[in-house]
């Protein structure tokens, strides 16, 4: 897939194999992988004489964006597909957390043993 993303024009199976010299892959293996990518919609293929030419359906960035929108719960579709470490956070809550972190870091500079009591800003966050 990286080969397809880097190429400005559609590639044949032979051209893709040619660029994968670092890994010694059989022609049929490359063909199978390209075929599977096409079936999943990650690449598009078109006839060019007797060979198929493959190109990436979307840019790498588009896929990364899709992945991250899902990861950050920004798609508007509440579903239990993923378990996130932190579920969506409001702007006010994020600001309060930043203040709490700053307070924590100041403490660490002042006291040798921080007590990690971030009570005040946290309660603001809870109410806000």
């Amino acid at each position: 897939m990286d080969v397809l993303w880097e190429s400005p024009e559609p590639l044949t199976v032979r051209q893709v194999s040619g660029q994968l010299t670092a890994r010694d892959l059989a022609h049929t293996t490359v063909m199978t992988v390209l075929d599977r990518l096409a079936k999943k919609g990650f690449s598009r293929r078109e006839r060019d004489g007797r060979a198929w030419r493959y190109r990436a359906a979307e840019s790498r960035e588009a896929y990364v964006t899709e992945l991250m929108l899902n990861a950050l719960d920004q798609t508007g579709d509440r579903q239990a597909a993923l378990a996130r470490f932190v579920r969506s956070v409001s702007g006010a809550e994020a600001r309060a957390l930043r203040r709490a972190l700053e307070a924590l870091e100041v403490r660490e500079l002042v006291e040798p043993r921080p007590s990690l009591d971030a009570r005040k800003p946290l309660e603001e966050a809870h109410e806000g």
Partner: protein
Amino acid sequence: MLPAVLILTAVAAGSIPAASALASARWPGRSPAAAILLWQALGLGWGLAAVGALAGLGAGRRHAAVARAALAVAARVVRGAALGPRPSGLLADLRLASVAAGLLLLMLLCWVLVAASAVVLRARRRQRDLLSLLAHGDPKVPGALVVDHPAAAAYCVPGLRSRIVISAGTLELLDQAELAAVLAHERAHLRERHDLVLLPFTALLRAFRWSAVARRAEGAVALLLEMLADDHALRHRPASQLATALMRVGAAGSQVPSGALAADGAGGGEVAVRVARLLRPAPGLSAPAITLVCGAAVLLVAVPVAFLFISF
């Protein structure tokens, strides 16, 4: 039959204010596992009692179990449709409508569960496909995949072929100890299949989008599952590392552009609640209190089941 219908109606109607009360209660944070059990019993009990009350109201035979009487009515209707005219009259029609409503509710509940599962499985397959193209391993987070993106994200894709995913932004943001705490949290989610616990509640929310109680129930169970995973992580990592990891990822959250839905209040101070709980832990519920909660959970399911399937 009448007392059975009254009790089933009482359970179904009582579940809703009970869910509201449970969503606002503070004790669940002290024993998340017991509270999740109670939520599951409340959901299942409500479903059984609501279906049973509607079916029983229509079935109307004395002393028979509600499920059997309702099935008998359904069988009579099918036979009647095949053989000719059926007994008519307003009362008979109302009874029939009530049995039909009960069956429809049962079908709706089963259907939303299947539909929600299908959506989830499809979304996970897409995630795994995308990850296999885009993500790579990193020695800083053994066993997890890294996606090169500056936003702070950390999540897992549950399932038989599960994945833990950390964004490059999170890798930058957290130190080694905090990353280990995040991984321990996510591994707990995967190991205990918390996604399966949450699924019925998201399914219920899909069926009753307008219902504030369904929304609060889903939010409460999701938060309790996070607390449960936090508690598991604490067995391997100190609380302060998990707490600072939470605060850093949470604080970075709103820096992401395109926050179309970030302000819908789904978070509602969840991170602050979890951090406060980690830094100043309250004692767990006492053994008698846990017994009481488990007893209530058993009753919530046992009572509707008894009236559905046993004749009095």
